């Protein structure tokens, strides 16, 4: 019993990284920006937090440094694709190479040493004392609560309940129409690319400040890609991302559980489970015609399309 709730605790933590990054990708995609460079921005956010941890004592400040690094990458992506209007796919892939390569290069000197500052658990008074479930659900560090409650609620509210969110969605769907209605397409897209980068940086930063908590080479291990895949799985809806992230986290903790309990499954097989799950989540439903149609309808129609006002 206890180990099961431990596994739940781990699932929530492991899912949080994906959740934060996926929310960043979702927001950027809603404005029409598909940044495939999530992996690179996460890696840079992580290494920035690691470097900051050498100087700063507050984990929150380190996280902010990670966020800033990610935001800077996102801004670069925004300027290159929305202002200069370069190809989003190639620019995103370039960011993966640049981000992962640079982060690994900078991180070489830090590899393996435990972090001097990390986030500590922030049990919620009373609730965390509930037997079993209390520890599993209510004794995480503050960023986990932010990831599961504040982020999806805020994203959902802004996108679907405010004028600003309506503008963002319109820009993501049909930039020419939004422009004709007087909205600022390029500025909005650049800002949302930056927000996406900031959240990727936050995911990377939190990963090394809490989950691992140490820098290892390739520490992001494909989580940026999983985040992009989860947005598709979630039909671009914030709350559905939470479900996807929990499933992913569940697979990771299943791996720990299997090792812990000696189920005799080789470690590499367990390590591939989260990726296999992610693939299954996006591939299998696509063969159900109704889901495929729903997915096609949910994707922002202007995703990756550059906007030229004077196009004929």
């Amino acid at each position, binding site marked *: 019993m206890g180990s099961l709730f431990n596994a739940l605790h781990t699932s929530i933590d492991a899912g949080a990284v994906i959740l934060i990054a996926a929310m960043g990708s979702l927001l950027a995609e809603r404005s029409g920006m598909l940044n495939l460079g999530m992996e690179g921005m996460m890696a840079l956010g992580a290494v920035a937090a690691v470097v900051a941890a050498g100087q700063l004592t507050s984990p929150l400040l380190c996280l902010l440094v990670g966020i800033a690094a990610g935001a800077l990458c996102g801004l670069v992506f925004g300027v290159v694709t929305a202002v200069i209007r370069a190809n989003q796919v190639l620019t995103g892939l370039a960011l993966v190479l640049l981000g992962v390569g640079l982060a690994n290069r900078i991180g070489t000197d830090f590899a393996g040493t435990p972090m001097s500052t990390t986030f500590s658990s922030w049990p919620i008074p009373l609730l965390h004392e509930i037997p079993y479930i209390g520890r599993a659900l209510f004794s995480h560090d503050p960023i986990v609560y932010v990831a599961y409650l504040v982020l999806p609620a805020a994203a959902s509210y802004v996108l679907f309940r405010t004028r600003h969110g*309506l*503008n963002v969605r319109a820009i993501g769907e049909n930039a020419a129409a939004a422009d004709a209605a007087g*909205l600022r397409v390029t500025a909005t897209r650049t800002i949302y690319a930056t927000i996406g980068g900031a959240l990727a940086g936050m995911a990377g930063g939190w990963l090394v400040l809490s989950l691992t908590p140490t820098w290892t080479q390739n520490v992001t291990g494909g989580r940026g890609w999983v985040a992009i895949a989860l947005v598709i799985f979630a039909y671009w809806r914030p709350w559905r991302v939470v479900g996807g992230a929990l499933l992913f986290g569940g697979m990771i903790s299943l791996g720990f559980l299997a090792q812990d309990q000696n189920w005799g499954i080789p470690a590499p097989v367990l390590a591939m489970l989260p990726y296999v799950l992610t693939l299954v989540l996006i591939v299998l439903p696509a063969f159900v015609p109704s889901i495929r149609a729903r997915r096609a309808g949910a994707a922002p129609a202007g995703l990756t399309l550059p906007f030229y006002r004077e196009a004929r």
Partner: protein
Amino acid sequence: MYDPQPPDVQNDQTVACADARATVVEMADIWKAFDDFQALSGASLELQAGEIHALLGENGAGKTTLSNVLTGIYRPDVGTIRLDGEQRRFHSPAQAIAAGLGMVHQHFRLVEPLTVAENIHLGRPELPRRLSRRRLISETAQAMEQYGLTVNPTARIWQLSIGEQQRVEILRVLLRGARVLILDEPTAVLTPSEATELFAVLRRLAASGRTIVFISHKLHEVLAVSDRVTILRRGMNVATRPAAKMTPEKLAKLMTGTERVMEAPRPSKGRGKPVLELRNVSARGDRGLVSVREASCTVHEGEIVGVAGVSGNGQRELTEIATGLRHPFEGTVAIDGQDLTARLPGDFVSAGVGHVPEDRIGSAIVPSATVVDNAVLRAFRTGELSRAGVMRRGAVRVFTDRLVTAADVQLPDIDVPIANLSGGNQQRFVARREAWAADRLLVAAHPTRGLDVRAADQVREVVLDRRDAGCAVLLVSDDLDELLAVSDRIVVMYEGRIKGDFTAAKARRKEIGYLMGGGDLVGGAGAEAPS
């Protein structure tokens, strides 16, 4: 430097100004170049309060470009815009909207997955930061009542008919406080009766002091609705005249610069065996909704069957069924008695079917590929051009040269990407290629749309020649005049159904228009039993 305005134009303007209405907009000496052509060469436009001003010209004359300059979408290379006598420079549509200039685009600028209410309010500064669904809907309903344009406010745009979408677009512009309302070819997507309704709305708006700019190339309409007409040709003003003093013939002459000799109709030499036989076909459109319903139609050798109807009533899907691009979920498709239901487009090509689709650039041409590769798109599998999976490159080049000559396409080199050709050249190229592919059946959707008069005549010739050679032709067009001029029989499509079957000689516009708008003829005159 010559004076871009011919002297007689200035005379005319002084006559018009005697009308003594206040001038609202004055555009003078507007120049605009795109990469490959000069769209505007010193065009000008003067608009008065409370008038309906038609902007007339052939395709490519610069009507839309001029409007886009006025509404801040394009920035002019040279030229001044004055609003109420004050010189203005718009850097974005937002600034033009704020100044009271609104445009209803030919391809609506609506966000499909959003609701009517959301679209209408999009970009309004008055919109509260926090959205209230209820308030959005009630304000929309209120505005609809005020302007007499009603649409379900909670419907999503993609669920609406084209006519309803147009109403949303007009409302959206009005709600932004437009004093000058520009409508780009608004009647192209409407039935005759919907167009009449639209004109009534426009007159009401003009009576309330707004200025309406009405872009069109349909002469009768222009004369029926407008107070003044400005005619553009090749990016320049030809004339501005009061509509009351004009006739369709005079307008046509100003528009094209020549008097058009209407050719005598070329009747069919008599029809032969049936070629295309559609039996009770039903099919779904791209959105998964049923868009062709139990349609039956037979096209014989040596006849042109015209399909009339407001666009979006299943014509595109019908042409796709007849060419194998879309599979019906019920009914059968046969060519020359051979059942081709649910077969691949390649089988239709082999059966001798040529197809000029509606969206030529999107689906009949590979823009990045060379002229050579585009020329053999339909015929590359034939023994003439390839053998055992290997292309016969020499034969391919000969084929291309012949096609380019036959289509009268001007180009330096057949190895350049076809995207380098102008739209009109591409269209003639596709029409000729498909005519060659069409041994038995030619399916042509709007083959002359967007062409100037001369090019349109050439394409029509190709279609008629094919028929005279004994080929069956299915011709879709939303230009009733064109259908009446070339078809031997006309059927009407409404909401996916085929209604009516007229012998072209006996067809009356009024009856066809009635069917296009959803009416039914109960054994009425002119209707014949489907053959």
